[in-house]
């Protein structure tokens, strides 16, 4: 029972993770496709060399992550993109980039120190 509950919670949590949404090439392609304008399920499925079931699953993951919503219009279901959550990823990419900027800072300071040791004070 405990295992079932924890696995279930883990899956729920994992599915809501925006990183998981964009980690898959097909899901990224679906996002790209509907970013400009909403598409219905049929036209999305036609674009990919995959079963309708597989596409439906990808769409569901994207929905659970809050990146798309589905609207019923008459007999058709339209997927619409809501990409503000992707900003979360951009923020973490920026943090990761900062990590490397810090390395460059550290390199710059070290080179500066080395220069002073080598050439003394006649060079600034």
């Amino acid at each position, binding site marked *: 029972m405990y295992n079932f509950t924890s696995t279930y919670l883990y899956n729920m949590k994992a599915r809501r993770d925006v*990183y998981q949404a*964009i*980690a*898959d*090439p097909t899901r*990224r*392609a679906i996002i790209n496709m509907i970013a400009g304008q909403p598409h219905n399920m049929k036209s999305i499925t036609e674009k*990919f*060399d995959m079963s309708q079931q597989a596409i439906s699953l990808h769409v569901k993951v994207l929905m659970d992550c809050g990146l798309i919503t589905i609207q019923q219009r008459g007999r058709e279901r339209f997927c619409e993109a809501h990409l503000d959550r992707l900003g979360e*990823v951009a923020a*973490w*990419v920026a*943090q*990761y*980039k900062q*990590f*490397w*900027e*810090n*390395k*460059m800072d*550290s*390199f*710059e*300071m*070290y*080179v*500066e120190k*080395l*220069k002073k040791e*080598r050439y003394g004070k006649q*060079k*600034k």
Partner: protein
Amino acid sequence: MENKKSSTQDRELLITRQLDAPIDLVWEAWTSPEHIANWWGPNGFTNTITKMDLRPGGEWDLIMHGPDGTDYKNKSIFKEVILHKKIVYEHVTGPKFVATITFEERGDQTYITWHMLFETAEEFIRTVKTFKADVGLRQNVEKLSAYLAGMKSR
């Protein structure tokens, strides 16, 4: 089907800097193990370089020692080494990426670019995510210790 490797913009990073030092000094600081050990790691880290064979196919082994005593092993293979111009290495332990560092002489200064290309967007996302988890965890620990310090002073 889309080609995973066709575009690089979703799996690369570029850092550039103009350094106020001549190119021979910059090159030396980047390529000598005894210098690298002094600047490589994040704040609070120390480094041990057990091997640095600076030539195409040569191995580079660097161990980062974290403030909490954890060791992080890094193995890379140099792909290209052109004196005062370019270093390309492949980081073969996770995360897998190819780094290209270029050096350009600009009078007494040196312009350096540092480009990192991850194998796949998946690898890049995984790395950023791991980093997120890592930084997030550290921030939590910092918050907790600030909170505990606040409790003590009360």
